[in-house]
């Protein structure tokens, strides 16, 4: 996958990455409640303005009617997790925005975990996980227990012929370890090697039979039929990955459905180009994909995924440069804004690395399932004087 390439690149950049510890306390957030009754200051609205001619072309005041659209299409709801797993649902939308109809399921974040120690990960991530990097099971446990991960992605990056060339059997053992360690649903990722990935994913799928994992990924450069078959044989879903191209995505989805997968078994990855590295291409492609789906295109009515981790490959996220301020702040923001932008275009599941980025993204995503005007919002009517400094 795309992000895998990035991570491999990061491994080479270790010298540049320099991020230190920082923490966040979320319990301390304070809400200002809405004032129960707003004072009405009676002011008559006469049309008398001193010193200026007034054009009295009073336009008719129409009523405000929320611009709610009807959509013929519906996004498939994909279940991840079964058997000994908790379940998570993706997609299911029948509208573009929450004021039209809130999403049935909130966006989900899946934490990246690796089958090898990954010394080249950005320091802020290494810092959180350095004690568990030798064992993918422990790593996954920490992501779930300490950072509230709803899901974990286990990247079998060590199976890459140029990485450690681990065998499919080794991969299956790693999968078993992670399945034992946590009960959240898993995404199972290959190393990005088109020859080996299908074989590795097949073995991994077998090891996780009945647990309904997401196999990442099927694409046009590899034996996608093998991946589709593994999913069907062992009850998993498939990530359908196309590179920033709506037509390529349609074709691949169609091929996968020909193999017997249903829309409920497919999640699309239309490719996340990071902030500053072509994010506008992803914005366009993802927006078009979701709109086409809601307008009725059956080949695109699946939830979408984002390899948000790509953000860490942007120079602004990792490069040490005093004029840009500390990298330890830039990295997480880069990841948040990359993911957030994708989320606002309709993406349902995010592969991410940094705990704070995950937290902030989830908080915004959780609002997507609520109805318009049902949240207590702070009183900002005096913000000009309330704001200190």
């Amino acid at each position: 996958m795309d992000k895998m390439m990035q991570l491999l690149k990061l491994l080479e950049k270790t010298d540049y990455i320099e991020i230190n510890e920082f923490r966040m306390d979320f319990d301390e957030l304070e809400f200002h409640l809405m004032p129960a009754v707003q004072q009405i200051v009676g002011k008559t609205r006469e049309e008398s303005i001193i010193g200026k001619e007034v054009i009295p072309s009073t336009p008719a005041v129409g009523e405000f009617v929320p611009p709610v659209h009807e959509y013929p299409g519906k996004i498939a709801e994909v279940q991840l997790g079964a058997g000994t797993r908790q379940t998570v649902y993706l997609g299911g939308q029948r509208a573009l925005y929450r004021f039209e109809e809130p999403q049935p399921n909130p966006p989900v974040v899946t934490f990246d975990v690796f089958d090898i120690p990954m010394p080249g990960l950005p320091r802020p991530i290494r810092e959180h996980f350095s004690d568990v990097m030798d064992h993918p099971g422990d790593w996954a446990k920490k992501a779930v227990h300490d950072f509230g991960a709803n899901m974990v992605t286990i990247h079998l990056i060590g199976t890459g012929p140029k990485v450690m060339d681990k065998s499919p059997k080794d991969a299956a053992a790693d999968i078993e370890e992670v399945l034992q360690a946590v009960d959240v649903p898993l995404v199972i990722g290959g190393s990005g090697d088109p020859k080996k990935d299908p074989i590795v994913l097949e073995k991994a799928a077998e090891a996780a039979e009945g647990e309904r994992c997401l196999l990442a990924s099927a694409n046009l450069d590899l034996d996608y039929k093998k991946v589709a078959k593994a999913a069907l044989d062992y009850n998993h879903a498939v990530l359908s990955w196309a590179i920033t191209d709506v037509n390529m995505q349609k074709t691949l989805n169609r091929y996968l459905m020909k193999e017997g997968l249903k829309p409920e078994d497919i999640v699309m990855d239309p490719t996340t180009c990071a902030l500053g590295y072509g994010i506008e291409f992803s914005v366009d492609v993802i927006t078009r994909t979701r709109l086409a789906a809601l307008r009725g295109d059956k080949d695109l009515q699946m939830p979408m995924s984002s390899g948000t981790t790509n953000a860490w490959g942007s120079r602004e996220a990792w490069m040490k440069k005093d004029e840009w301020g500390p990298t330890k702040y830039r990295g997480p923001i880069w990841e948040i804004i990359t993911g957030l932008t994708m989320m606002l275009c309709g993406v349902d599941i995010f592969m991410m690395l940094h705990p704070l980025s995950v937290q902030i993204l989830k908080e915004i995503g959780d609002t997507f399932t609520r109805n318009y005007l049902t949240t207590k919002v702070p009183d900002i009517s005096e913000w000009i004087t309330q704001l200190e400094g």
Partner: protein
Amino acid sequence: MIVTAMDVYKLLPKTNCGICGEASCMAFATKLSEKEMELSLCTQMMDEELEKLKNILAPAVSEVTIGTGDKAITIGGDEVLYRYELTYYNPTALVVDVSDDLEESELEERVKTIKDTEFERTGEKLTLDAIAIRNKSGNSEKFVETVKKVKDANLPLLLCSFNPDSMKAALKIVGSDRPLIYATTEYNIEEMAALALEYDCPITLFIPNDLDKMKELSNVLRSKGIKDIVLDPGTFVDAGIGDSLDNFIMIRRQAIEENDEDFRFPIMGVPAVTWISSKEDKVTTGMREATIAATLMNKYADILIMHGADIWELIPVLTLRQSLYTDPRKPQAVDPGIYEFGDVNENSPVLMTTNFALTYYTVEGDLKSGNVNCYLLVLDTGGRAVDVSVAGNQLNAKSVTDLIRNSGIENGVNHQKLIIPGLAAPVSGEIEDESGWEVMVGPRDSSGIPDFLTEKW
């Protein structure tokens, strides 16, 4: 609402007289529909058609100008909901606030920070656009004093006070500079509207979370003859951001799809409010503010008031703005060919890159900051990055060989060595075979070029 060239052409004189500078009325119509020419260039129009054309060419979201002279900014002007349908116009203005209760030295420093904020990306200098002066003290004399001091910064101003007396006093000083009045609410609409008319300044309507009322009061302002309105439906942080997003999106849909005159105005967001409720440390609060700014910018904010002015917080927001507002119809490319850096002679190294603007300017920045003396050959890949054009086969043995032959570099240096980007390594062998030059594979990131040359050249 996208206006087609045909819609425009129908109303033109169709005489092809050429006075506008275009060969035909159709050509002029095309340029007009793409906003590349001014309607006034055709002097042959009849009044009735002229009026009609003005109407159909008026953007769905009206343009509002803040400030005067070369620093003035224009916001609004959008025609579509999604950038791929056309393009977005007038990048979101980024404004940072100053409070009127700052110590003199603090104020000076903050204004300087705002003025000096600059981040260079793809050959463009990204900067902040305006200063919002906040009447925190509630006192009109203090407000006026601050306005007087900030005026010299020579940036467009937003005057922030709900108190009409403070506003009036400030407008006496800077009213002729077209500051944006912030804000009229349901409680001060008469006085503020009168000031907007008296000083001919744009005005913000601030109605948190109530689009019914916003529509009603926008209508009131319009019926008074006010044309330059900015809408602030309230920025809420934490779980309230959902309502803010809904409000922003509904306003823009009303403007573009429903042609609702009361909503055809630029939208303002105020990420600065993040700092009011935050009990978190400054860094986390800054990250949250940047997140709110990015959220609203993605969904139609035309102007944003920020409080945090740290560069690390602004860089991602500036970058997002540049990305969202690139024109999807145009490739982001520089001219291909041969470029020189520093002092070059016949022994200078020859490097190669592609003509994607982001790639070229990234490499250029690294060569300059590393004080490298070299030739840089820029390959026409149709504006694609290095690995993209390797994958898409625009960067191949033949295209690189043609570049070497046609650029004249062979007469400029007395060696035949070409340094290619690390990401082009897969094609290094074929380039050697085809061109006869020795190919050296450079580092994967261009920031490594200076060290690479020190070691290997």
